[in-house]
């Protein structure tokens, strides 16, 4: 970006801009630091006034880390979260991407592909509490409460529409000429999809996968409703710590970091297309 605007701005407005950015950076970073601070405090230090700066105001300890990482339930939940996240992402991409390609390339007889896309979108913006009862009952009836499969089934449903809408938008950027040329060379429709369109849309595919994974990782409403022990994910574990242990906030501090870190760290690597993905393709860029 050319900086003419910046160079031609007045000294005072530059100062204001810098102050705002610094404040914003502090505002964003402080809770992360506080979470790390909590995880190295003792339980009493978490609720002691004036225990803010490590070493100066409290003695840091790794006890909570040892306790939490030694607890099989935590490791179980981390494993569940990962498995459900990866499983859902794979399933959603497997079913959603072909549909997206179909909607991006072809027209349909009864409905315009644009309208079918909007139909998919309608599913995504609906508040999930609407289907809380029927989903719970469905899973209860087929005996899938507290199973990984049940959770993957639910999460795939919530994310499928998202994948279709966003991948359609990305496939539409793949130039038709390339596909036409491949067709002239005798490539089948399937080969064009699999060997040309898909590799050319890899960036978009990665962002879609990331957003789906982050959704599954962070989802709390259905996770806490349909899992309790065996298939409990991190949000369930964190919510449950309130009732079972009267909330031990120093180990909750460790859980917080374990829960927050994976998607946040992954997000640093997928900055491109992120805005486009999150806006269902309304933003190009």
């Amino acid at each position, binding site marked *: *970006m*050319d900086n003419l*605007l*910046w160079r*031609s*701005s007045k000294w005072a407005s530059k100062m204001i801009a*810098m102050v705002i*950015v610094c404040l*914003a*950076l502090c505002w*964003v970073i402080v*809770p992360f630091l*506080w*979470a790390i601070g909590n995880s190295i405090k003792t339980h009493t230090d*978490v609720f002691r006034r*004036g225990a*803010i700066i490590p070493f100066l105001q409290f003695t840091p300890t790794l006890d909570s880390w040892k306790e939490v990482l030694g607890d099989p339930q935590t490791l179980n939940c981390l494993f569940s979260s990962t498995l459900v996240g990866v499983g859902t992402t794979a399933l959603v991409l497997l079913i959603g991407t072909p*549909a997206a390609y179909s*909607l991006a390339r072809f027209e*349909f007889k009864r409905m315009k592909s644009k309208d*079918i*896309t*909007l139909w998919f*979108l*309608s599913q995504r*913006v609906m*508040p999930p*509490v*609407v*289907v*809380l*009862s029927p989903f719970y*009952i469905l899973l*209860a009836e087929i005996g899938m409460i507290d199973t990984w499969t049940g959770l993957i*089934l639910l999460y*795939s*449903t919530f994310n499928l529409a998202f994948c279709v809408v966003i991948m359609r938008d990305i496939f*539409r950027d793949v130039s038709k000429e390339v596909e036409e040329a491949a067709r002239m060379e005798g490539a089948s*429709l399937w080969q064009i999809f699999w060997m040309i369109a898909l590799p050319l849309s890899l960036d978009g595919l990665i962002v879609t996968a990331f957003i789906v994974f982050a959704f599954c990782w*962070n989802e*709390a*409403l259905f996770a806490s*409703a349909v899992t309790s022990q065996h298939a409990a994910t*991190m*949000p369930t574990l964190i*919510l449950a710590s309130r009732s079972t242990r009267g*909330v031990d*906030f120093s180990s909750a501090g460790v859980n*917080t970091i374990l829960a*927050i870190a994976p998607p946040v760290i992954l*997000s640093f690597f997928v*900055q491109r297309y*992120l*805005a486009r993905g*999150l*806006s*269902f393709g*309304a*933003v190009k*860029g």
Partner: protein
Amino acid sequence: MEVNELVQSKAERGFKYALLAPAVIWIVGLTFVPILAAIRYSFANYALGEGITAYVGFSNYARLLTDGSFWYSLYITLIYVLVTVPIEVCVGFVLAWIITIGVPGSKYFRPILTAPLFTMEVAIGYLGVTLFTDQGGLYSTILGALGIHIEWLSTAAGGLGAAMILDIWIWTPFVFLMSLATLGAIPSDIFDAAMLEASSHWQVFRHVAIPLAWPVLTIAILLRVLEGFKAFGLPYALTSGGPGTSTQLFSVMADLTTIQFTDFGRGSAMGILYLIMVSIVITFFFKQMRKRIN
């Protein structure tokens, strides 16, 4: 030649339907059928293990509509959305503008400023307890030093306020990210030319940047409103709806009704009523999306 094309288009037809069908069937089966099921349950009493025990007509709805706590939870959810979304939009857009015009180091700020967007809401809710507690919480300590004493976690207003502050922390990056992408897609010549014409920076921001970004900003706002109406994990982890039921946002209340008290008939009726109310926003959203999707 004609036969060839016919064969090809037939293959094409098979291909496009084969690719599309699984997704359509999945969504119909696992979204539209459940919504119909929810409508059915909302007219019934449902007991786990026994199934529907009785059809009760509109009684689930009637009990809800005459229940003060139902209206109260709708009311505070509305307040929640009306407070958080405008702040998130203004702050997010201004930050995006500052980064776009090229504050030194802006390249590195973007990933940091977007990080909260991907944090787990329930984890942030718990973190919020330690930030806002009057026993050594960071924010209450800082505000206390400034002479502001608020009972964050023991009053309805304080609990909602704390939840809103954390909501703003998580979701401002969403608007920031959208705005950044939109402003970045506008050719910088436009801003340069405007800067030569305009008398102040503020005028460029007000009369060039905002109007050009407005279409996308509308969609960002509507998406935020829709997501705001779904708020669950953060307020639930922060206050568990308390003290009493004073901070039970709609999704929290629906979750407690359905899962804790296993009142599926009432829970379904709540969901259906909510869907009807939110559909006003959804309609606006669709009008805007129709223009953007090609």
